[in-house]
């Protein structure tokens, strides 16, 4: 008997053979069968073959149309890696991503192409120009599967290339640890530029199931979406569940069709998990954890109804996937238990950052293994379960997105005429938001305009506040706590 392949394209093709006439994708009010998506993606792969030569990366504009989904599949089928571009991000961010990833070819709807051309793109594919010729080559032009860009503290986004082998390792675990069927209907809330979307697509397609893309205000109308679309497998950041809770939409028993729910990207509180379990009593709820650098998620914790007394009121991050090792780092020492920075090793750990692989301190070798230092402060208990305690640095999660406040400060610095910007995260009304302090009096409208050229909306601080002088602590260092206090209560 052949060992099944968990390569993302092989998983999709196995479903094409098994259930060609079942829906693979529902988007924009239309269903696309596996056979139809197979043909579209082969045509995309054919275009890549004809136009991209030996170049290993192709960008995909992330507007959620059939073109983007066929584009991702097609790029992978052509033996290349895709670089997703969020449709709402400014051209300045696209430009930075295209430059840093060395990409000029973009799969994008016609209406987005003028802005993309300004950002540096040179070749385009849209549905109208899709060739009829199907791909014939099986050559691999790169070991990468995709490149995701996250916030970088230097003022530029940071590119994380994720390998095909690493993605295959992830899919091997998730597709065998959890059972899915071709009658399942998966939610697809994540932006295609968020690596958790990769789970949505390929875990769904591994089962011959249907990927359901919510229309319009996906987050705000997700309860109606579950009901109307008959969603059976949910995946979102906890913030989206918190939004439903805030809308009083998590009434007990209100989501009985759900049979699995995955959460990832930020801390899942026990209170929220309990409300979710009551609303979806038939669903197995799983808390996933993992940085982009270690491929989507690398640890898991099944939520056990009734076990709500957890440290800090936060559901544990759980145990690492099989074949992976977690340690806490204390200086140069790695420990199996205790508190400290979480470091991870195993087949899902990637090679480094674009243009920074050799210099990055986050990737290191010890005990004969390669490790990734997450920057997350954890407790590893006697059972080997990881508990999230906070961050080692100032990185913030906003609705699951990593934000380095230093990126905002680096962009504002040159606009302040010798002044300085300091961004802090504050809790207001139970949510995390950013507040930026500046020590020169300037119209925030002008500063926001500068930020909007480079940053996505979620990275814009909620407020820009003026201070005469930055508060200092007893040793003359910036007193961030005082700024947080002022932003919270001032």
């Amino acid at each position, binding site marked *: 008997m052949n060992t099944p392949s968990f390569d993302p394209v092989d998983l999709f093709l196995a479903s094409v053979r098994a259930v060609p006439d079942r829906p693979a994708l529902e988007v924009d009010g239309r269903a696309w069968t596996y056979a139809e998506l197979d043909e579209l993606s082969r045509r995309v792969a054919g275009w890549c073959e004809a136009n991209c030569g030996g170049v290993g990366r192709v960008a995909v504009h992330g507007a959620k149309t059939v073109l983007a989904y066929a584009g991702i599949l097609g790029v992978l089928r052509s033996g290349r890696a895709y670089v997703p571009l969020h449709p709402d991000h400014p051209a300045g961010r696209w430009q930075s991503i295209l430059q840093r990833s060395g990409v000029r070819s973009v799969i994008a709807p016609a209406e987005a192409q003028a802005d993309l051309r300004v950002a540096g793109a040179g070749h385009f594919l849209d549905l109208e120009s899709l060739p009829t010729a199907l791909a014939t080559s099986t050559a691999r032009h790169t070991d990468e599967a995709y490149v995701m860009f996250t916030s970088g503290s230097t003022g530029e986004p940071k590119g994380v290339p994720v390998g095909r082998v690493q993605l295959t390792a992830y899919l091997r675990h998730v597709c065998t640890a959890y059972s899915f069927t071709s009658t399942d209907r998966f939610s697809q809330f994540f932006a295609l530029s968020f690596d958790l979307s990769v789970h949505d697509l390929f875990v769904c397609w591994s089962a011959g199931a249907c990927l359901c893309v919510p229309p319009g205000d996906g987050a705000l109308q997700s309860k109606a979406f579950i009901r109307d679309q008959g969603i059976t497998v949910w995946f979102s950041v906890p913030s989206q569940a918190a939004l439903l809770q805030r809308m009083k939409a998590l009434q007990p028993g209100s989501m009985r069709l759900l049979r699995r729910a995955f959460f990832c990207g930020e801390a899942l509180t026990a209170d929220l998990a309990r409300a979710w379990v009551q609303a979806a009593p038939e669903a197995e709820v799983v808390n996933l954890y993992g940085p982009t650098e270690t491929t989507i998620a690398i640890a898991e914790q099944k939520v056990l109804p009734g076990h709500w007394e957890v440290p800090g009121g936060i559901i544990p991050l759980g145990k690492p996937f099989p074949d992976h090792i977690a340690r806490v780092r204390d200086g140069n020492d790695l420990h199996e238990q205790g508190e400290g920075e979480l470091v991870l090793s195993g087949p899902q750990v990637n090679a480094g950052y674009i243009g920074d692989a050799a210099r990055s301190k986050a990737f290191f070798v010890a005990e004969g293994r390669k490790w990734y230092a997450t920057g997350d402060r954890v407790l590893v208990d006697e059972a080997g379960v990881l508990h999230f305690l906070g961050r080692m640095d100032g990185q913030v999660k906003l609705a699951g997105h990593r934000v380095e406040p230093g990126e905002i400060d680096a962009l504002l610095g040159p606009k302040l005429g010798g002044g300085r910007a300091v961004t802090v995260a504050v809790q207001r009304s139970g949510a995390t938001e950013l507040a930026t302090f500046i020590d020169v009096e300037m119209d925030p409208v002008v500063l926001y305009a500068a930020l909007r050229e480079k940053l996505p909306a979620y990275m*814009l601080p909620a407020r820009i506040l003026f201070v005469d002088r930055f508060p200092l602590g007893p040793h003359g260092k910036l007193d961030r706590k005082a700024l947080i206090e002022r932003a919270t209560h001032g």
Partner: protein
Amino acid sequence: MDRQEVRKWIVDHAGERFARIGLHADEVTDDLDLLHTGVLDSLAFVDLFAALIDATGKDLDLESSLAKSGSTTLGGLVKLFT
């Protein structure tokens, strides 16, 4: 509250967030979409909606209200709550 009062309440409430999209509060027009332009994120919009329910005493369901065209614009919200 009458129409003008609800409008002023919303503009005051969103206040400093208009700067995010390059507007001062006195430049805001009724067709401004508070959600899709990025003035408010989803959570802030839900909070605004809940605060409007408290302020006006008009108990509306957010999900069904959102299904109405233009309900996330300033003018649309004013119409819903007057």
